């Protein structure tokens, strides 16, 4: 049986062992994400919504993180806000 080899680069090691506490499920992320992106958009510059479980989940779940980014872009556009600034605010928190 042919084996496939993958190098354990530092980035991969970090992703394999990522700290994703406090626990939040994908279902709960979906339930809360609309409220989270609006709080993110409405928070004053430099202030973050107090959502450690959401942040931990978005760090650990690429699918939820990608969908959250799109939702943030849409909600920013609805408010006439710069989507680039909105995404930067999300990334600096996760």
């Amino acid at each position, binding site marked *: 049986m042919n084996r496939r080899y993958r*190098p*354990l680069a530092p980035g991969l090691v970090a992703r394999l062992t990522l700290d994703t*506490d406090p626990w939040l499920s994908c*279902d709960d992320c979906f339930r809360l994400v*609309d409220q989270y992106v609006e709080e993110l958009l409405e928070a004053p510059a430099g202030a973050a919504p107090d959502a450690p479980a959401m942040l931990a989940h978005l760090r650990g779940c690429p699918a939820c993180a990608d969908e959250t980014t*799109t939702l943030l872009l849409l909600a920013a556009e*609805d408010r006439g806000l710069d989507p680039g600034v909105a995404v930067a605010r999300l990334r600096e928190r996760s």
Partner: protein
Amino acid sequence: MTAVGSACMGTSTAVGEDWVRALSVPGPLQDEAMSLLHDLMLRAARRQVLRMTPMLGGVGLDVVDEIAHQSANDAMMAVLAKLGSFEGRSRFTTWAYKFAVLQAATDVRRRVWRERAVDVDRLELVPDRGATSEQYAEAVDLASAVRHAINTVLSQHQRRILLALVVEEVPVDVLADRLGATRNALYKTLHDARKRLRAHLRETGHLADLTSQAGTP
């Protein structure tokens, strides 16, 4: 413009009540609300599909639109089925968008992976030879510890899920489809696997190495 139409542009302060009522009560307003909701779903689905087009490998706008329309239709049904769960914690539009975004993202990922096999049983993790000589010894030591932990501390199920999701980067919903599981269940397995690895590496004294490399891309 009606109250629902205003809500669509994000200018109404009573969006939630208007949307839920308009979508629930048969009549001309319901027809209009349905049409506006479909526009919202299509906008959100198209945005998600466009963001993922690099994964689709050079498809044209006709394919983007085909996926977006199908996703928007499915998402609209999901929104109408869940209408009673809208609590007004966000604008109705933001709440509704998330169904279209989820549906479109899932549809694209399934499409991208439909011809691809998922096989982690032949996968072997090896030390990174790209590291500089200065980093090499430390990197090899840490990689060896992580590899050993994956092979000895995790259950067979945890190992397979961890390797598929993190090393092979199989999307969680695609893997859920293949295994007859849910996205939630697989993420929980991943969370538990990571936690168990971290606990073991803390015991072996490698957690400080992990912390120092946490920001490495």
